[in-house]
């Protein structure tokens, strides 16, 4: 089982990194021929950085759009961040100071993550228009994330998985040496779900994460009168004249 998981993790990580890189490269290489920021838009690059930061950190537009969705999303994403950082302890030896510091928060963030996800899913199930636009994969994605959160919490608070062994496995994994992994169904489930998440990331709506940085309505400066904006394929039209 340890070997299998090691291979799965290598494959999924590879898929995640290469797939994501590929995707980002296509976004970066696709021209944005016209200036289309949604106004009121910043006039300077600094302003754009600020706007983007507010979007990424505080979900500013979502806040304007719908308070409930915003609250659930912030709760979920914030918790996810804490939880993910907390998991660095499984990959570092000795554990970095700040990782150790957030450890207690990271543990409880599992609960808020689950709650946020639950709220989002409830919206999808019970709000008519959100149900209308949901696909099967939208539901499954939430179920997958909830499964990861729930199984993680269970290992921490109920079955008490041997985390020292788990850490040994991942430290070994990092150095290409296979170490034994505790043979527990719940751990296997947790890890398999994470593998699945990594693997589907570059092919799914999770692309919203890199996508936002490339969204012309948000990342462009509002200065079309001051600076001529020309893409390569558009410039060619002029030389053909």
């Amino acid at each position: 089982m340890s070997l299998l998981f090691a291979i799965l993790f290598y494959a999924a990580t590879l898929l995640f990194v290469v797939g994501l890189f590929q995707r980002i490269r296509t976004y970066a290489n696709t021209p944005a021929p016209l200036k289309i920021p949604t106004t009121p838009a910043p006039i300077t690059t600094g302003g754009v950085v600020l706007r983007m930061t507010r979007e990424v950190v505080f979900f500013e537009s979502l806040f304007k759009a719908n308070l409930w969705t915003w609250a659930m999303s912030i709760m979920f994403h914030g918790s996810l961040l804490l939880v993910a950082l907390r998991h660095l302890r499984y990959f570092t030896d000795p554990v970095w100071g700040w990782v150790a510091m957030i450890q207690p928060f990271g543990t409880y963030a599992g609960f808020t993550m689950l709650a946020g996800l639950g709220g989002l899913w409830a919206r999808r199930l019970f709000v008519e228009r959100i149900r209308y636009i949901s696909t099967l994969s939208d539901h499954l994605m939430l179920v997958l994330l909830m499964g990861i959160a729930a199984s993680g919490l269970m290992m921490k608070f109920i079955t008490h998985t041997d985390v020292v062994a788990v850490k040994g496995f991942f430290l070994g994994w990092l150095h290409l040496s296979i170490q034994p992994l505790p043979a527990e169904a719940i751990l296997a489930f947790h890890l398999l779900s994470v593998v699945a998440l990594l693997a589907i990331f570059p092919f799914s709506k999770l692309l919203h994460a890199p996508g936002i940085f490339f969204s012309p309505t948000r990342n462009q400066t509002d200065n079309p009168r001051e600076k001529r904006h020309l893409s390569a394929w558009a410039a060619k039209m002029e030389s053909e004249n």
Partner: protein
Amino acid sequence: MADVAAPAYRIIPIIPALKPGAMEGKGPFVANEKINEALGFPGKMAENWQETHDAVIAKMGELLGKYRSLKVYMDACVHCGACSDKCHYFIGTQDPKNMPVARQDLMRSVYRRYFTLPGKLFPALVGARDLTREVLDEWYNYFNQCSECRRCSVFCPYGIDTAEVTMAAREILDSVGYGQKYSNEIIGKVHKIGNNLGLPAPALIDTLEGLEEDVKDATGIDVRFPIDVKGAEVLLITPSADFFAEPHIDSLIGYAKVFHATGTSWTLSSMSSEAGNFGMFIGNYDQLRTIAMRIRQAALELGVKRIVVGECGHAWRVAYSFWNTLTGVGDGADANDRFAQMLQKQLDHRYKQPAHICEFTWDMIQDERLSFDKSKNDKHIITFHDSCNVARGSRMGDFAGGQFEIPRNIIKAVANNYVEMRDGTTREQTFCCGGGGGLLTDDLMDLRVKGALPRMEVLQQVVDGHGVNFMATICAICKAQFTKVMPIYGFDRRMVGGVHQLVSNAIILGDK
């Protein structure tokens, strides 16, 4: 129009219940062969479906490679629904396919099927669909129920702009001979005659002479409406509706009075007598550019120093955001950019190029070169309707949000009674009039009336609460749409007018 009734008002804000299929149908009139071919599109759809199918997918691939917006927007939507209740067409029609995200999904489902791995492998799982004739008809219907107003893009956490998707869809439809009559016909007129209304130069000159007489009768002052004057300082580009439609013409008179009172030499161009650019509505870069090139040409031929744009929403967006890219009207071209330099050397860069007429007037007011008798507007209690393309697509002045402040400042400078409509329905969150984006056609009257509902509800509130009797706006489409639709809601059509109509009422001409 007897069969079109206004929907009932509700207590706003409201999220309406879904009425699936409410706006299903054939969509607006389809452009005929002659109209399409004049723009270089195939006259009609191929008899053989497979041929059309392949052409659609190929065109879609092409656009995905040309527009980062489309590419990112097809991938990034998480179906969060933040945009779902933001579209005036959804609010007014209750058809779920008019939710911005659902409108995008009409295209996204096809994108997923043909351009993504999961869509190829597990279509049902990710909501991917084969492109069928029915799907294409659905595109035609629902992508012609979007006014490209971009309200949805304000609220989407990723800035996903349904207008971009709509434009791509319309471009694809045009590329296979499935274009919309109204927009394509108008573009044909611009190419042939120079303006959207098909007003030939002699008729235009006639109209302007008539206007000079009218203004002389009304004020006793010789206000000129010059055309094709070489060496004038300002070239005015305004929507052709300003030349004779009501109430548009009152704004044109206002611009002329401002130029007169400030002693600015100006001119119109008979060759380039249109600010509107329907190339944007059909999402076609070539059309957008060809139409805009007339303005470049007129500016070069007449040797003007400044280009000023009249009251028109999408025209201002095209002018402000795209003219520099398309034709070089603007500033900041590279030194080796000969195409743009040719024009930019001629223009006077102490001023913004192009400028909106409201920027022009506001500058003059601040320089105290205009004076007003505000009491002339006392019969009006005024509110301001932000036009979508000005509010969300372009700017005025040199600070973010100038497009909201400057028209309001002008109104307050020329009139005493001003009232704001409800928060959340003005400025960048304004509702579209319901007639933008190439939908200002009688065959879409039902949609237009329903799409105006949110604006009408909010207007009613200030009418009831503050006695508002005039809604000023700076868009030719808003003016045309509201004068037609508001009577159906029980308002007087003369309630709508331009900002420069108010300027015209109050401005003091002659010796001060």
